[in-house]
């Protein structure tokens, strides 16, 4: 029998592909089932948020921040609002601080639930997705009751939050926490986390060493999956996070390799428990009082200056660099989206020669990107 010749093939994955979680294109050079090299192309969703921000007032920018990471919009609102408050040296009422923590953590759970559900679906398990969306729906209902929106809240604003949180909504959140933890998370682990097929698809795949992750600016659960204990809520507590007790789950290499897809996935599942812990403490302590600084709501005019502020969003470090020239419009707003840096590591992970075409999907899913934030 003559030797079988193989040829390299260029494969376009995306821009419209269900597993790229948005309009994202990767050009893959393959040899049979093996990926030799990949090259990411982004920018399909680019709308130059930063230019738009120059032409709007500080308050008008808030809805644009929603549309960056639309799965965890509360964290973006919070990051932006706190940056402007830092510029203005504005103190936010105590009650607003608690509301902010509660909604951000709830949103983090919602975001991780979506990551959990779609990741299962990427790998080929449809059922966990339905379970995750059932529970995510409860959170979205709460948000709808709170501010009328399901995704793009614009709820956290400079000076506080838009509406006060009612006793009824607080009771809803309490009910959700009791339902969700520990039973539902246990259910997830039985459904997906410790499923044999799922483990064999994700364990020892896309191993991301800690130094490579840091060099690429990877933050959030994707970095913690590599065993680096870095969480801005603990390291540089902003808002009132220093008042709560919670742990930072990190990857342990339980399934064979530290920093593999399974570790990154598991960090998100464990983080949901921690978020519930924070919400429970915040619900117990929430004081009465104002929910916003009324003066800041009427108009924002920070003094001349510039400042960088970062918070821990669901995907990592959400940072804003704002330059103010003393007018009602920002001179420059730079948004640092965690997904932008997290996805830049993809080419390095898939070009080492040990990645199969099917692993591409597993690796992209485990980085949990939102294209709205990558392209801004």
């Amino acid at each position, binding site marked *: 029998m003559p030797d079988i010749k193989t040829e390299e093939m260029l494969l376009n994955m995306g821009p419209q592909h269900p597993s790229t979680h948005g309009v994202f294109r990767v050009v893959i050079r393959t040899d049979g089932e093996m990926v030799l090299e990949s090259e990411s192309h*982004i920018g399909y969703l680019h709308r130059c948020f930063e*230019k738009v921000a120059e032409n709007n007032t500080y308050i008008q920018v808030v809805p644009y921040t929603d549309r960056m990471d639309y799965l965890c919009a509360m964290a973006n609102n919070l990051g932006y609002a706190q940056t402007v408050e*830092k510029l203005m040296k504005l103190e936010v009422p105590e009650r607003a601080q608690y509301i902010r923590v509660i909604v951000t953590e709830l949103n983090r759970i919602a975001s991780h639930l979506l990551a959990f559900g779609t990741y299962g679906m990427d790998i080929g398990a449809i059922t966990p997705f339905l379970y995750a969306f059932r529970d995510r729906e409860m959170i979205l209902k709460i948000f709808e009751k709170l501010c009328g929106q399901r995704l793009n809240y614009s709820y956290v604003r400079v000076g506080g939050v838009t509406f006060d949180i009612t006793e009824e909504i607080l009771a809803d959140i309490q009910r959700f926490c009791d339902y969700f933890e520990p039973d539902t998370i246990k259910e997830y682990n039985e459904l997906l986390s410790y499923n044999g097929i799922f483990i064999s698809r994700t364990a020892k795949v896309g191993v991301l060493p800690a130094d490579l992750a840091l060099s690429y600016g990877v933050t959030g659960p994707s970095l913690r999956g590599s065993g680096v204990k870095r969480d801005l809520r603990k390291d*540089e507590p902003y808002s009132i996070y220093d008042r709560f007790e919670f742990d930072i789950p990190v990857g342990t290499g339980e399934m064979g390799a530290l920093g593999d897809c399974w570790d990154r996935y598991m960090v998100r599942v464990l983080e949901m428990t921690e978020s519930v812990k924070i919400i429970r403490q915040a619900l117990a302590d929430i004081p009465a009082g104002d929910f916003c600084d009324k003066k800041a709501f009427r108009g924002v005019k920070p003094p001349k200056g510039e*400042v960088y502020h970062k918070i821990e969003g669901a995907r990592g470090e959400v*940072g804003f660099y704002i330059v103010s020239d003393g007018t009602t419009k920002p001179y*420059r707003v*730079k948004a640092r989206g965690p997904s932008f840096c997290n996805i830049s590591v993809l080419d390095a992970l898939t070009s080492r020669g040990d990645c199969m075409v099917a692993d591409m999907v597993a690796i992209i899913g485990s980085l949990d990107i939102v294209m709205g934030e990558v392209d801004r």
Partner: protein
Amino acid sequence: MGLERSEIHGILKEKFGDAVLEDHVEAAEPFVVIRPDAWEEIAFFCRDDQRLRFDLLSCLTGVDYPDRKVIELIYCLDSTPNRHWLVVKAALPRDNPRIASVESVWKTMDWHERETFDLLGVTFEGHHNLTRILCAEDWVGYPLRRDYVMPETYRGIKNVIY
């Protein structure tokens, strides 16, 4: 815990002398201004020095100041082991903004520098693939320059401005 900002600025001034042009430790966000041609050397030092260990470059921002005729680059450096933080600025001439690429120091700079090139037109010397990343490849102009005028059409398609 890590070092105070003034200590970090002190280390840089001691090592690089007059390459550190300004030191604003009193600002709301303390920063140092460096001479652009010394940036690569400073970057390696910031990453490798045991006292500093800036292993994570959070953010690269470029700001256009037409009245001062400069484009200011702002590098936000973060250290995960030491938990401290540094902001480095470099002012480049607006008509020919060039600075050394530091993608060999922090890999994340590959995309960040491409973004700054794309939106502000800063050339990073030594970058292996300095092409547009967010805008279309044949886009004309640099949107984040203050005097940028949005084109009326793109490939014959009218831009609708609301």
